[in-house]
């Protein structure tokens, strides 16, 4: 069963009642909300996501709700909550949707320490994955969105989830938040992409969420083997450069980029060294998405041969 099998009303009732149980890759979430506006957006943007079995354990119980008490009447706000706690400052009610999406990322980054969490986008084709470790602003979400609308499968735009037992990447194909100019860039690049409303003047500027292609969402339980590290950087008007990186440098860049390298200690060292040894690493500077996508397509075809 998927979210789309529920009527808008049923979804609203679940959100306002015991919560809407949703499956995002390896994580089961239970989401509550008493905000009408949120329920409408969730129905539209979460439509193809699967619902876990009724019996399944939820990993994170999150909520995005109007504040309790007097503040509810003073200003229309939305608070992100996890397990009944509200650790963050409230948002304007118009930004409830991006706030919940950030909140879910926060849960993954602060709790999923059974996995190595790379701060990295990831895509897969023919069983081989590219990881794009990068800092915010390097354009990993934009590049990743372009690739998953060009025949690649989305693993994640934010988390490289590495399973310690076998070094495989676990997909987490959540909505991709595009920021500011990237939204228009992707609209032009693939007019058919499903993009939610633009949230103006959030604390990260304008944000709009791209829904990953259906195939990525359906194959969310299918792990992938990492094959390449590509360190992207978007530079306006720059000609494309695509250069191999020495493994020693790649190791440092991957290790220092992880969310929880220190927490996993020796295990993290082993995982990152194995990955860097097995993968080819490149740096990519680009300004044109078509060129970047072509280069990575060629990389994967060469890898096949």
């Amino acid at each position, binding site marked *: 069963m998927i979210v789309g099998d529920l009527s808008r009303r049923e979804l609203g009732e679940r959100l306002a009642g015991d919560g809407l149980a949703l499956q995002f890759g390896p994580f089961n979430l239970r989401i509550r909300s008493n905000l009408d506006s949120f329920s409408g957006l969730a129905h539209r943007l979460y439509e193809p996501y699967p619902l876990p079995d009724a019996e399944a*354990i939820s990993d994170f119980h999150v909520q995005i709700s109007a504040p309790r008490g007097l503040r509810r009447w003073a200003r229309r706000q939305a608070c992100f909550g996890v397990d009944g706690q509200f650790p963050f400052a409230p948002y304007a009610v118009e930004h409830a949707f991006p706030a919940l999406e950030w909140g879910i990322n926060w849960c993954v980054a602060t709790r999923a*320490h059974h996995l190595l969490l790379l701060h990295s986008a990831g895509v897969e084709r023919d069983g081989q994955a590219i990881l794009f470790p990068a800092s915010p602003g390097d354009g990993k979400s934009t590049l990743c969105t372009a690739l998953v609308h060009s025949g690649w499968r989305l693993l994640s735009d934010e988390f490289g989830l590495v399973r310690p037992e076998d070094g495989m990447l676990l997909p987490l194909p959540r909505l991709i938040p595009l920021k500011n100019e990237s939204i228009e860039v992707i609209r032009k690049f693939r007019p058919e992409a499903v993009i939610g409303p633009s949230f103006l003047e959030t604390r990260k500027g304008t944000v709009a969420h791209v829904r990953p292609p259906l195939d990525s969402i359906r194959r969310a339980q299918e792990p992938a083997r990492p094959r390449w590290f590509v360190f992207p950087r978007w530079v306006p008007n720059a000609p494309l450069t695509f250069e191999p990186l020495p493994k020693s440098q790649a190791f440092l860049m991957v290790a220092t980029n992880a969310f929880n390298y*220190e927490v996993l200690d020796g295990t993290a060292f082993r995982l990152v060294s194995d990955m860097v040894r097995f993968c080819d690493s490149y740096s990519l500077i680009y300004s044109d998405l078509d060129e970047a996508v072509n280069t990575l397509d060629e990389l994967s075809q060469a890898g096949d041969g």
Partner: protein
Amino acid sequence: MANVGSETRRAQQLLLQALQAPEKLPGLPPADWDLLLRVARRARVLGRLESDLARAGLLGDVPPRTAAHLRAARNVIAHRNTLISWEVNRLLWALKGIDVPLILLKGSGYLLADLPPARGRIFADVDLLVPEERIGEIEERLVERGWFKTEIDPYDDRYYRVWMHEIPPLRHQERGTEIDIHHRLLPKTSHLKSDPAPLFTAAQPLANPRLCVLAPTDMVLHALVHLFLEGDPDEGLRLRDLVDVHDLLCHHGQEPGFWADLGPRARALGFERPLFYGLHHAQRLFGTPIPPDVLRGLEDIAPAQPIRMLMNRLIPLALLPGHPDHPSRWAAVARWLIYVRAHWLRMPPGLLAKHLSQKAWLRFRGFRKRVDLAQLDLRQQ
């Protein structure tokens, strides 16, 4: 709307049964695991459950999703333990040449002395007890060697230095780990007499003789004082601290003379009441084996019957986490009352009124701002 009372009881029973009889956990239905994971995380005993299950060889018999959460908890604990041990190592380096015994309190003490409460427990920082007259020298040296005084507002700084039992925390510039330096176990202003001198005399050296921990009875008493007098109005009494007490009693209780010394020591240090409540509730919640004559011996320091009945209601309410989706108003009231009681015991009424109104004023003016999620660097968590 679900019944808050019955949901609260269900959550608490799940947690207590898990702590008392971890061997029964593999039979737990998924819906119960779902709630237990949340409640145990809130009470900070997820790592404890992991360790209990690992000891019993039952980690493979819990649902995979549960195992992932337990594994995550274990990884974080192992990491924190490394950080704490390393911080103690760096402290020894920084304080080389300063001839003063460093008594490790609470978590760092349990960890370095390899005591049972360290099992599956997460530690936030390093707590030290040193003689008050040596604090200036120690603080100065640490600041020279890379620690800095955390920025706190002038009111809090004064609060610490004039009234408290510790100085404002020091944090290392690169590692970010905090050190709390204490010179006594309770604030100077406390109603409970707390002369720290006997603690230093009785402290026991570790393998590295520059490090000590409190003597067994003092360690139990400190855990209890910490539990009952250093609460938080939102969090209430920390169940995790009572688990520590249970572990310490089971461990030290095997040593000859421990039980005979405990009551008299509590009297000598002025901690009879915390001991009375602590033993009573450890036994009630965890079935801690306490010799009956020890409990009988404490009867003369028990509070008057009405107070005793009230506290018997309040303490479990403030100790046990409720159901995360159905917060109990009674528990919130109990936590607040216990917090006020702790402060009442920590300082005289005039000072208490002044302190609480100052805190309320700061809160009103928004000094306790909450973090903005969108601006958070998730890697710094």
